[in-house]
């Protein structure tokens, strides 16, 4: 445990949807170059928590957040932090693949060009290729870069979305049930990709699929009704949980 480097430190994080207290004073440290899986029954707050990490909850007007999310020593909820730049550094992949209605090339190149990471031309081409390669989809699309991204299969679309996220060169990638809409073969590819990606990025993923968490996650956090019940190494959580609720959930007694 000692060699784990803390990437994100969450301190006393509370969140309200209007009057509803949805997250109750969470404290958790997420580690660099690890995959952390957030598990728990529906409505437990795991996705809400995930969206706190790149301030996507700011888009919902009724949401109020208190507490700190410190990333690389800076609280992203500080007044002098621009949420747009937070999202640039903390990428996100969604449950439903959502490629833009543009060409595959443009899907990947769009954000880096806007952010000024690259200029149009060979630099951009290179970045697109590199991102698509990292997302493990280059060989499938290299000849159809001009085709619309929406024409790909679901699993390919999701890998395109990952490529799109990587292209911005984030530090952290948040994944919100990235495989729940996909078939088993596509899921396997994405899982393999995640294991590959953790070498460079810190990955935090929400999943409904316990086996998936067990297969790929280094750390697992179990949420229930807005509380963080237990957080430990995945092996420990699955084999020897300390909390009764965790055990009940993992053994399928509720969920």
């Amino acid at each position: 445990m000692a060699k784990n480097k803390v990437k994100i430190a969450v301190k006393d994080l509370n969140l309200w949807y209007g009057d509803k207290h949805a997250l109750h004073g969470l404290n958790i440290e997420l580690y660099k170059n690890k995959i952390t899986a957030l598990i728990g029954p529906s409505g437990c707050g795991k996705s809400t928590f995930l969206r706190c990490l790149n301030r996507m909850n700011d888009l919902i007007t009724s949401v109020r957040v208190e507490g700190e999310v410190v990333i690389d020593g800076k609280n992203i909820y500080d007044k002098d932090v621009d949420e747009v730049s937070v999202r640039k550094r903390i990428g996100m992949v969604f449950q439903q693949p959502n490629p833009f209605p543009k060409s595959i090339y443009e899907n990947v190149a769009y954000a880096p060009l806007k952010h000024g990471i690259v200029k149009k031309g060979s630099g951009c081409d290179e970045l697109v290729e590199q991102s698509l390669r990292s997302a493990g989809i280059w060989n499938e699309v290299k000849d159809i870069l001009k085709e619309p991204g929406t024409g790909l299969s679901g699993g390919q679309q999701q890998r395109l979305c990952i490529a799109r996220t990587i292209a911005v060169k984030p530090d952290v990638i948040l994944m919100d049930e990235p495989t729940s809409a996909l078939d088993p073969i596509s899921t396997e590819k994405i899982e393999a990709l995640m294991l590959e990606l953790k070498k460079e990025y810190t990955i935090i993923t929400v999943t409904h699929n316990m086996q998936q968490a067990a297969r790929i996650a280094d750390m697992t956090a179990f949420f229930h009704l807005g509380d963080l019940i237990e957080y430990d190494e995945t092996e420990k959580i699955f084999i020897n949980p300390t909390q009764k609720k965790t055990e009940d959930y993992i053994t399928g007694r509720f969920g």
Partner: protein
Amino acid sequence: MDKNNIFYDPSLKRRHLKSKLFKYFTLFSLVVSLVFLAIFLLDMVLKGSSAVQQTYIQVEVSYNQESIDSYRDAVAKKYLNLLSRAALREIPNQIQKNPSLMGTKQVLWMLADDQVDMYMKEYYYKIDEKDMKTLEELVKNGMVDKKFNTIFFTHGDSKSPEYSGILSAFIGTILTLAVTMLVAFPIGVATAVYLEEFSKQNWWSEFLEININNLAAIPSILFGLLGLAIYINVLGLPRSSALVGGLTLALMTLPIIVVSSRAALRSVPASIRQAGYALGLTKVQVVKDHVIPLAFPGIMTGNIIGLAHAMGETAPLIIVGMIAFIPDSPTSVMEAATVMPAQLFTWAGMPERAYIERTAAGILVLLSLLISLNSLAVYLRKKFEVKW
């Protein structure tokens, strides 16, 4: 800026500014649209409000044989140019209607000429010097007054602006719209019922659908060409009549009624139909006794909206001649008639300044009617709205 702030990105400043400007641009466009609406309504109210009152002059009217021979002798000569010709012309008629007036002299408030009215309302006017002196004296003696303009609501068109009103155009509108709805309502609803309940998915129903869609997009003036070529030239129906106007508008209103009635029918859930079939009812029975009654409020709403559309339409009616000069209200659909928007069009083209306030006032009347109709439609929709 904090040097430790790893999220500090100076390039974002420009992008945020752009984002803000974009938002302001969209807000600005919305505000501009609403300001247009406000300016427009305010302009009509300002221009039309003075028509609420009309100027009258207190003069002595003598009812005798000379007045019958020439209305010019009914009042003192010096007042002649200040009074409404059209109103004076009515004096012989008054005697005819009420013979006991004969041989009497009465001090009455007589309708003033439109130029006097314009003078009293402080608009541009044209009155010659001699008459001006008489008028000023009358004003000083309190013999000139503005009274509520009943003429506007009780008279038809007139060549004298002060004596013209919206009534015959209003009656014409009612007759025309009656024809329109009598034709468009049954055909429109029947078409909707056919398309929604009976037609099968084939080239014919698809063709019908495309056709109705296109019909809705054809410029209204072309319906006027149809009315002129078919109703008047081929069928020989009377030009300028409410019948021809109504039939022309009926074809225009048809697509609106079909589309909204279909939406109303579609909102009746399939379970109602299935329940009917399960009771052994035929398709016609299910539609007639169960689906149509449930969809009826929605169908009515669509019809009212179609009616409001037809009420404001002018161009095709001009083509079929409904801009005739109509001083007396028509009594049948075969007579020459005009409608409110066409009346407004005629007035707007008149050179006399006094017609402008009447046009604006007529516009306010027309808009109030349209707003009432649309509110009725909204009310009906709200009242009978059923959530399935």
